[in-house]
């Protein structure tokens, strides 16, 4: 079930319209434009709400994405690299977001540092094809994952603060 906080963050993200994946040529360019517009809006909203927590960019084909996400606890900023590929079956299937540097450090990950999503994520995604995009995957997938796992990993001493 989607909690109030997630619902609120979802409400700030425009829905996408074009159902196209990386194999769809021109339509994919259209979809990519929608993806970027939704992401830009989402980051802007996050900034306004003093909840800025990630940056993403892609290769020029829009098939490989990378960037940073961070989590703030006790005024310390814990930062992680984020990466994922857009699968050929996108947007029917969601991208599998990975934090490679945490691979092997928590049981809440699949191989390669792919985050383990809740049972609610996939049905929710499936019901909202093609309206959900990368911004939604971040808000519904990575955001809640960081909020639950990072404090736990900090407490266990698995994640330690690094001076920048």
């Amino acid at each position, binding site marked *: *079930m*989607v909690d109030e906080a997630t*619902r609120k963050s*979802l*409400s700030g993200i*425009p*829905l*996408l*319209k074009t159902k196209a994946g*990386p*194999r769809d040529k021109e339509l994919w*360019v*259209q979809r*990519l*434009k*929608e993806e*970027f*517009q*939704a*992401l*830009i*809006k989402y*980051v*802007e909203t996050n900034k306004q709400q003093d909840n800025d927590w990630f*940056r*993403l*960019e*892609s290769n*020029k*084909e*829009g*098939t490989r994405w990378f960037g940073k996400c961070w989590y703030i606890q006790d005024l310390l900023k814990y930062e992680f690299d984020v990466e994922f*590929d*857009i*699968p*050929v*079956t996108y947007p*029917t*299937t*969601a991208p*599998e977001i990975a934090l490679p540097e945490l691979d092997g450090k928590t*049981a*809440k*990950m*699949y*191989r390669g540092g792919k985050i*383990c999503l809740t*049972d*609610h994520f*996939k*049905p*929710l995604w*499936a*019901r*909202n*094809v093609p*309206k*959900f995009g990368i911004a939604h995957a971040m808000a519904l997938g990575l955001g809640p994952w960081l909020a639950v796992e990072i404090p736990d990993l900090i407490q266990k001493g698995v994640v330690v603060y690094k001076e920048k």
Partner: protein
Amino acid sequence: MEELKKRIEQLEQELKIEKLKNETSSVARPKISQMSSEVVDSNPYSRLMALKRMGIVENYEKIRDYTVAVVGVGGVGSVTAEMLTRCGIGKLILFDYDKVELANMNRLFFQPHQSGLSKVEAAANTLSFINPDVQFETHNYNITTMDNFQHFMGRIKEGSLTNGPVDLVLSCVDNFEARMAINAACNEINQIWFESGVSENAVSGHIQFLIPGKTACFACAPPLVVASNIDEKTLKKDGVCAASLPTTMAIVAGFLVQNTLKYLLKFGQVSYYLGYNAMQDFFPTMMMKPNDGCDDYHCRLRQKEQRESLILNPVKETVSEEIAAVIHEDNEWGISLVDESEPVVEGAHSEIAPGIHAAYDLPVAEEVVEGSSDSVDANVSLEELMAQMKSM
């Protein structure tokens, strides 16, 4: 520096493989050009050829002509590949991007000394020692990304012993994305395949036979789940993603290969869907018809071809347990879509057949709500948007 490290890693791996080859080559048996049914202790095929003598299989040697692609060489796929190798299959094409890890040792097949090796290479190495008559082709990559997917489709189309399409694709992957990718490829190239899976709680599994246009494809309905009769509320998922048991995986691999043999060697009846509920030892079966509104264009195209060929050559087929892929229920569970204000309601899940239900329900088409008013400004180029995002 990084590259050098990678190169050393690669060389270490190659060394490891060479060492293994040397250790095993001294005891490896020579290739056998023709399967014999002679019962002598040196004939690895005598018990298989006995199937022919007993009248179970008409022509067992035929197995040497067949090529099977195994996608995913993990707990199910590695055991599947071993069984087919021991049965004397002609050629195996193995796909997997993963490496062997010590965390895999609760499963069969791989051994601790192989950790660090790519699964496909480690598997081909062990298997060619078990049966040098089998041809192996390995691909160490993720099939769901653009470039690899094209190559994957090419190997399915041209990977057989005669450079034609493979005889069967076996999906032994552990995730929805890869299954959907295999489904898309098989619908597009009209390739018959089997799906297999073990649940994340390790106590149920299934195999499914997919004939494009004739049976439901993997995208025709939400993923099917064998009821494990465990109260969802008591199922704890905190702290772990997935559990696994060698038993469940081996049982599913056994079902998969048994049905592969039945299909290739034409004996018995091939199951369209066979479920396994380990808690009750319950094995539901059924056959599911394709969904004419399937999301996959090529699935709909294959269905059209199927209908046309049925008109030309009507066959009377009797399948007692045929089930339509989509059950258009009234919206009695209050399924709703997320729009910007509406809450999401989780519904009960349609039972497809006794003991088998959909993992979730999808909204019916009429319910689709319009997107937000934020539409794409046609004057903005993708490059500008990328730059804008980058400068934030």
